[in-house]
């Protein structure tokens, strides 16, 4: 089934929004406007985009420390995200969470997560809720190659398999967990091989090809919705930036490797396809970018101008009274 033009444009827009958002964050971080650390998604946009393009607002996702892309792809609001990254009271979490802890329960976003392997068990729980209530909702768990070594991830996949929970485990294999190359942290060729331990399908896809990701996700999500249980979908990709901003990312990766992967950048690749397929013209692309740029500029201004939380906010939101 060919992908509708509208979906293609939506995906292009999402990818560009992520790229431009992250580029903006990078600049703002360099300008010392953002406290703490940020983990950028540049280079991996096709994964979140392709996967989330198959989801509904009522579906759930769990995210990671590298969450901006997931959140934007699931519909996260640029303004609220930027304000949160700045630590402002108007942000998604009133400034209490920051980059690593943005959530939007109304959009089914159960939060970025500072704990590697923290998300998978939560995703199993969200999927359980959908199954329990008898909706055909699905949960998607994003996690990295590094996170695929964490015991909690295995437990979640096993439980999901046992109960045929509607969850898709989307592994973003960018080949590194911080400085550790996946070649040294696992002895399988593909993270997807790990599906065999749980009796679920393991699928490998080119994570820099948004169409391939989308198509694989459609299948996995369909399976989940139909009650056929979880899938482990591995998307091979690469992060262009360091682990965090501030890390040049070159102490453990060769310049050649980085350059080679930059040539496989998912965005120009998709652009070319869209232009060749006449889905978009250069001009419409430009106008999309302008719209995003405007949204980002407005978001930045909003974030900049927003107040920091007040002292009296410190101990609120700990409990529901």
């Amino acid at each position, binding site marked *: 089934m060919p992908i509708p033009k509208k979906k293609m444009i939506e995906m292009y827009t999402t990818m560009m929004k992520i790229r431009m958002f992250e580029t903006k964050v990078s600049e703002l971080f360099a300008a010392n406007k953002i406290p703490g650390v940020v983990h950028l998604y540049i280079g991996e946009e096709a994964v979140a985009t392709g996967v989330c393009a198959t989801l509904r607002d009522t579906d759930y996702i769990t995210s990671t420390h590298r969450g901006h892309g997931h959140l934007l792809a699931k519909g996260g609001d640029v303004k609220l995200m930027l304000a949160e990254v700045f630590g402002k009271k108007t942000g998604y979490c009133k400034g209490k969470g920051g980059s690593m802890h943005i959530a939007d*329960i109304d959009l089914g976003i159960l939060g970025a997560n500072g704990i590697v392997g923290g998300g998978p068990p939560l995703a199993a729980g969200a999927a359980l809720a959908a199954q329990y209530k008898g909706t055909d909702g699905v949960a998607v768990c994003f996690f990295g190659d590094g996170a695929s070594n964490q015991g909690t991830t295995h437990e979640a996949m096993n439980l999901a398999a046992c109960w045929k929970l509607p969850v898709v485990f989307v592994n973003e294999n960018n080949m590194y967990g911080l400085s550790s190359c996946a070649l040294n942290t696992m002895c399988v060729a593909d993270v997807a091989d790990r599906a065999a331990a749980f009796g679920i399908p393991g699928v490998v896809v080119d994570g820099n090809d948004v169409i391939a990701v989308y198509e694989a996700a459609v299948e996995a999500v369909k399976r989940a919705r139909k009650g056929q249980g979880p899938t482990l979908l591995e998307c091979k990709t690469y992060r262009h930036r360091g682990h965090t901003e501030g890390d040049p990312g070159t102490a453990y990766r060769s310049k050649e490797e980085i350059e080679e992967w930059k040539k496989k950048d998912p965005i120009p690749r998709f652009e070319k396809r869209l232009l060749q397929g006449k889905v978009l013209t250069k001009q419409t692309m430009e106008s999309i970018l302008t719209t995003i740029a405007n949204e980002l500029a407005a978001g930045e201004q909003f974030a900049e101008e927003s107040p920091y939380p007040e002292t009296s906010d410190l101990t*609120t939101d700990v*409990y529901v009274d």
Partner: protein
Amino acid sequence: MPTMNFAEAIRDALRIEMERDPNVYLIGEDVGTFGNVFGVTKGLIDQFGEKRVRDTPITESAIIGAAVGSAACGLRPVAEIMYIDFIGVALDQLYNQAAKMRYMFGGKITIPMVLRSACGAGRGSAAQHSQSLEAWFMHVPGLRVVMPSTPADAKGLLITAIRDDNPVVFLEHKLLYNTKGEVPEGEYTIPFGQADIKREGKDVTVVATARMVHYALNAAEKLAADGIDVEIVDPRTLSPLDEDTILDSVKKTHKLVIVHEEVKFAGSGAEIAAMVAEKAFDYLDGPILRVAAPFCPVPFAPSLETEFIPSEEKIIEGVKTVVQG
């Protein structure tokens, strides 16, 4: 009022809440057909089926995570960790996820879940099946910590816990399961943060938790014979802690002994003592004493385990020390 034991009272609470709210479900190891290792959930699977009484693999992080995730999405899980000692393989899901999500997300998420678990020594279960660890949970903002001492309290507090919109750690001392007491029929709740004065007295305040409440009550009877009138305060929930009731009692008696089963050093009693030393110092006649386990793992041999657990004698001795100055 009917008499039932502690385990039955808990089951009663679970049944009432499961009948009342279809979103309440149980999840844990051997909670289904087996009915929990202490028989607590016996029969519930027959009434509510496998959907609502869910046996899991041995995979505690997934159990708690599934509870947290489903609670975030509208269910009200009552998860079980068979022995609280096992929490170490899964603590992240409890303290970094369940407890902090609401705060980290700016108040925009609600995690209404209960984590039930058996705690305490006295069954020869040795170092990895006998701990209490309530001090750890107290130290985590975002958690409620409940530690009942009687069947009636257990039932009412568990119903409150299930209806509460916060993650609650509910610790059940395994040697209490067979203890009996009168338990009101039907549904009732006991508010969190409300200590119960299990015995009124005027000479000395004893704050005791869980099984130690009963030891303290026995000790108090014996002390009464010596003319010492002990007031026993059972906090029932350690977080929130009912500081006022404790302080009021100390203001009346001017003397304080704290009794708990977990290790004394950095245990729950430390917070209670510190709180009183700050807020009622001027009312105190003398040192605050803690009667609690020594600084060692729970031993296996009965001769050692008995010595490990605070005894009536040690409570009596502690009270006398404090009273006689």
